């Protein structure tokens, strides 16, 4: 089998991992004899017709796998065609693509072959060869194999910008059903190893000080760790998914949780829903995720015991606002930042602009349009120097219907690239 055939199989096998981000790395430039650089934000070098970014060469080292996870195209019992790259082939492909400016770097994952340690060793070898033999300073994201030895995970962290371990499903009982070989405790143990490695490297750097004559200690996964959860393959509610996310951000200090609408795969197991991926639900989870990370919302504000799933018709911030009408309208010329962040249709960047501008000038409605506020969603909930809404307060009949109608128009008139947009 030649490299092109392997590439066809092993990129197809890797596409169900939502993450392709090359962000979060600290600035780094190529040495005189090497190639590769990173900037904080990462670059998407192309987009496929699914609207998703192509930033990294995202491939599996092999799609042979001893596990049998029901949702996975590469599970042992799947009839999919198998292939395996050598470490050298992956290194060469990465360099060839990188030199032509097709990619930001490599995202390497693998099916589990032989055992966890053997597989992890293979991944580490590719990263190490790129960094040491080829002086490659581009982005490297490695998948961590949950049961791999601590020393191997630690070594991976020395060469990679980002490590990720997919929890895949939010509860052990979901894993029991679909991924019988996987255990949440093993996954969180591996995350803990990475978290502690990052913390230790940070302390070392702080101790050595910026004026230390000795070289800086090696960075350890400078872009942090990430994970992915599959949405819609089991009956887990959005509340359960978001609780798991909150704990991953809080306890494991993850940089990103990706949500991946379960999508039909060739030769799928019949224990899975044979349907189109729940893309709108995935989009709402991303919105809720952004609200937790950047807008100060807690999980129990976004879902309630009686409505454990996010509303599909309206975004989660608007949904919260309708449940808390008594807190509105808010005067954009006077309320503090935390309150501005709660107004539907007012994003983080708009809040920043509002706060800067209102020091000099009392804001009117026309100002808000130019500050990128989504007016149709925002207007029932705010007041300005020249406007106050008529229909607000606990008894505002008809409000729900009117904002829902406007909002649906908004939603479908604009493409949504869930993983990257965060203005709500």
């Amino acid at each position: 089998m030649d490299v092109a055939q392997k590439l066809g199989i092993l990129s197809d096998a890797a596409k169900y991992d939502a993450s392709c981000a090359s962000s979060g790395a600290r600035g780094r430039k190529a040495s005189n004899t090497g190639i590769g650089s990173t900037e904080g934000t990462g670059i998407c070098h192309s987009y496929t017709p699914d609207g998703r970014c192509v930033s990294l060469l995202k491939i599996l080292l092999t799609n042979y796998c001893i596990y049998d996870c029901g949702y996975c195209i590469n599970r042992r019992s799947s009839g999919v065609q198998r292939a395996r790259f050598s470490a050298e082939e992956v290194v060469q492909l990465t360099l060839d693509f990188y030199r032509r400016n097709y990619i930001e770097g490599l995202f390497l994952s693998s099916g589990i072959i032989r055992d966890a340690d053997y597989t992890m060793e293979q991944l580490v070898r590719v990263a190490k060869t790129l960094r040491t033999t080829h002086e490659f300073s581009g982005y490297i994201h490695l998948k961590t194999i949950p049961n791999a030895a601590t020393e191997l995970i630690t070594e991976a962290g020395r060469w990679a910008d980002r490590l990720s371990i997919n929890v895949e499903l939010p509860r052990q009982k979901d894993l029991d059903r679909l991924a019988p070989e996987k255990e949440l405790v093993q996954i969180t143990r591996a995350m803990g190893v990475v978290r502690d490695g990052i913390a230790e490297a940070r302390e070392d750097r702080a101790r050595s000080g910026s004026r230390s004559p000795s070289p800086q200690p090696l960075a350890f996964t400078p872009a942090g760790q990430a994970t992915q959860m599959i949405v819609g393959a089991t009956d887990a509610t959005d509340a359960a998914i978001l609780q798991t996310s909150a704990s991953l951000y809080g306890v494991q200090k993850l940089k990103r949780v990706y949500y991946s609408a379960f999508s039909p795969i060739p030769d799928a197991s019949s224990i899975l829903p044979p349907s189109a991926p729940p893309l709108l639900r995935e989009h709402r989870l991303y919105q809720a995720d952004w609200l937790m990370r950047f807008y100060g919302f807690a999980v129990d504000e976004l879902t309630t015991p009686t409505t454990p799933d996010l509303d599909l018709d309206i975004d989660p911030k608007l949904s919260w606002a309708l449940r808390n009408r008594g807190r509105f309208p808010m005067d954009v010329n006077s309320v503090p930042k935390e309150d501005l962040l709660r107004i539907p249709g007012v994003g983080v960047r708009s809040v920043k602009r509002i706060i800067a501008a209102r020091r000099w000038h009392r804001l009117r409605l026309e100002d808000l349009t130019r500050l990128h506020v989504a007016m149709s969603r925002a207007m029932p909930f705010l007041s300005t120097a020249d406007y106050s809404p008529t229909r607000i307060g606990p008894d505002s009949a008809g409000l729900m219907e009117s904002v829902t109608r406007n909002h649906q128009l908004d939603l479908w008139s604009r493409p949504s690239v869930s993983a990257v947009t965060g203005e709500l």
Partner: protein
Amino acid sequence: MSGAGLVSSSMKIWRSSARACLARDLNPQEIAWDAAGRASLIFGAPIQGFADKASTHTVPGRFLAMAALVACHRDPDRWSLLYTLLWRVTHGERHALEIASDPLVYRLTRMHRAVRRASHKMKAFVRFKSVTDSDGADEEFVAWFEPAHRVVELTAPFFVDRFRSMRWSILTPDGCARWDRESLSLSPGIERHAANVGEDNLENLWRTYYAGIFNPARLNREAMLAEMPQQYWRNLPEARLIRELAREAPRRVTTMIEQTLRAPEPLRTRGGSSS
């Protein structure tokens, strides 16, 4: 076209012209700006040679940072818009830039963002082709690119930092950048046919990857177009696959769903065999 010169040189021209205008206390309505950023009185003589009579005004760093990028915009009004804002900033509205909803600030901010985006898209969408001499030695990388704004000079240092050990050239209609592993040189723009960059053998492999990573169950053409506008497609080797991939996607999804419906339920036990 060529001869328009590289952007930051016209930014330098504009800066010295603007200083001269401020020193003479010329209000924005009295000045006409040419494409290169030179000022003259409306119906009058060019304004120049005021280097000795330096303006006493100081300007926020933020204004200069924004102006440096707006200068790369293709809008012919950019010089007069910048001067109008400069005039306000130096005449009692030092804080003007902080009011993002001010119509002039809003317009300039949009131009600033358009240039930043054009520079970002250049970092993303330049595609180098490997060119070697007959013995296969002395590899060099060449790209033809058509930026949305005049961002070649602004963006070239990024390519130096990234591809330091390669020899490369980026050719565009606005200007060309060349790195010989030691220094960066800039030269006037050329036309597409003069660039004459051929195919690279790796492009087939790249297209294989692009087709493989596409998930037909998530087809979303609008989201793709928002981030990769069609104006860039003709210089992207992978773009020729887009139409076919999009057209075939619904059929591939239907096939997968039908297969799943037909599949027998496997026996599953935790940790045990299930095949």
